[in-house]
């Protein structure tokens, strides 16, 4: 007699730490990292389809599910994943201080005028 299916927990015990002042950024990072995994899975599936089609005229879902890459093909996939990781998670280079970004540039005068006009308009309408 077979035993009943048991659900395994997905979360570990204990509080989850957050590293940014705003935990929403940690949450977004989790979404982002998880998403990169899903893209990689889709890429592998496409790679499987392409490789199967190279040898067979038509393929079924079962063919895809049953496919397991050889050592050589898996090595190609590893190289592709490493390149993908390097491109997606391109860290800003370590430097002495952070640049001030766009805020060091003086706003163009035209922009200033537009902003002032908008403020005046909103004051007039309000």
């Amino acid at each position, binding site marked *: 007699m077979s035993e009943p299916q*048991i659900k395994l927990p997905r979360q570990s015990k204990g509080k989850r730490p957050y590293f940014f002042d705003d935990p929403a950024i940690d949450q977004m990072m989790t979404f982002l990292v998880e998403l990169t995994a899903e893209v990689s899975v889709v890429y592998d599936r496409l790679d499987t389809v392409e490789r199967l089609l190279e040898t067979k005229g038509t393929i079924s879902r079962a063919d895809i599910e049953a496919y397991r890459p050889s050592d050589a093909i898996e090595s190609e996939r590893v190289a592709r994943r490493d390149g993908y990781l390097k491109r997606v998670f391109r860290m800003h280079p370590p430097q002495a201080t952070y640049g001030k970004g766009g805020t060091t540039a003086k706003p163009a005068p035209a922009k200033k005028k537009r902003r002032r006009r908008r403020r005046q308009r909103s004051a007039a309408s309000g």
Partner: protein
Amino acid sequence: MPFQAKHDFLVESSHDELSRQNYVQRLRMHILNQIGGGMRAVYDKRVKPQFEKSQGRAPKDEYEVHVAMLSDNYGQVWSTMMRSCQEMVWDSVIPAVERAQPKLNERIRGLNARYGTLTLDPSVKVPRYVSATDIHLMPGNYHTERTADDASQGALYDRGRFVYNGGAAGPYADAIPRTIATYIRRKWPDFKPAQALELGCTIGSSTIPFVDGFPECEVHAADVAAPVVRYGHARAEALGKRVHFHQMNAESLKFADGTFDLVYSIIMFHETSTKAYRNILKECHRVLRPGGLMIHMELPPVGDMDPFEAFYLDWDAYYNNEPYYLKYTHEDIRACVTNAGFGNDKFFQVLIPDLARSPQAFEAVVGGEVIKKTQVARVGESAKWFTYGAWK
């Protein structure tokens, strides 16, 4: 290569699950080596100078480095990715284990052992240092049983740890124990253990290299958690290896005094409490015969590390559910070993290069060369194993 050696009890993952597991392996290596590799430069170029500017001195210890690094954006990005990735390791394997569970337990229960034995002891109480937290964020930890004869935590650990290692420890995930067993054999060729005991063996992947390394030796392996020894027994049988597994607490072994010639553990102590560490060392001394060898591979002590390296190594203690790790890496191991009954002159410690990854350096250390620098040894970054012990 990213392939794990197959055996009859390794869970089957689907096409997409395997793809996800293989991605997580590379992701972890990328975070460790590529992103983590930049941490030192961030510290030297930005964090340390800023600290010096505001405080008028350099950070004095790892705790100050910890706060400063995790206040920096780079440290925050690295940390949050490390944490997410660690969660993904188990998440990528759990569905396959869940699917396999009923049948897997049934097959293990009906196992007809041809090589070794399994001795379970339901009276063994899981100590708090195992039950209180899910070490390495593995949901359910080593000990959770959800049904009679449950071995699923063993199955999860087997596949999940391989994903975690990224294959760096070889197809059987046993690079460290293989290195240590070979070191013992090569360093002390006259030492011929007849009985050996591994403590904290989990699924026995660290036991089998000792079976291979000492074919004349009767090898026993103990762990407090039933699911992992159950699974380990099945795994060893599937691989045709003679191991005698016991569900036993290493703090109170059921073996008589002077039973073993060799007692060892592979990266176990940092998952036990300060009190347990001392109790286990005493038990090692008790169950060893005079002239026997106690040897443990563990995290290197942080005492002589620079504050940055100590912070980097201790990160896991805080954020990877390893609460005892910090106390352990700050222990005076020589004092603990001698307090357990071993002679001060019988104590030794050695940094052993990995046998498979750096065979020449391994040979040099067997020949007596000493590697002075204690390096950061998180799996995937280093290939030198800190090992210590004593002769009785």
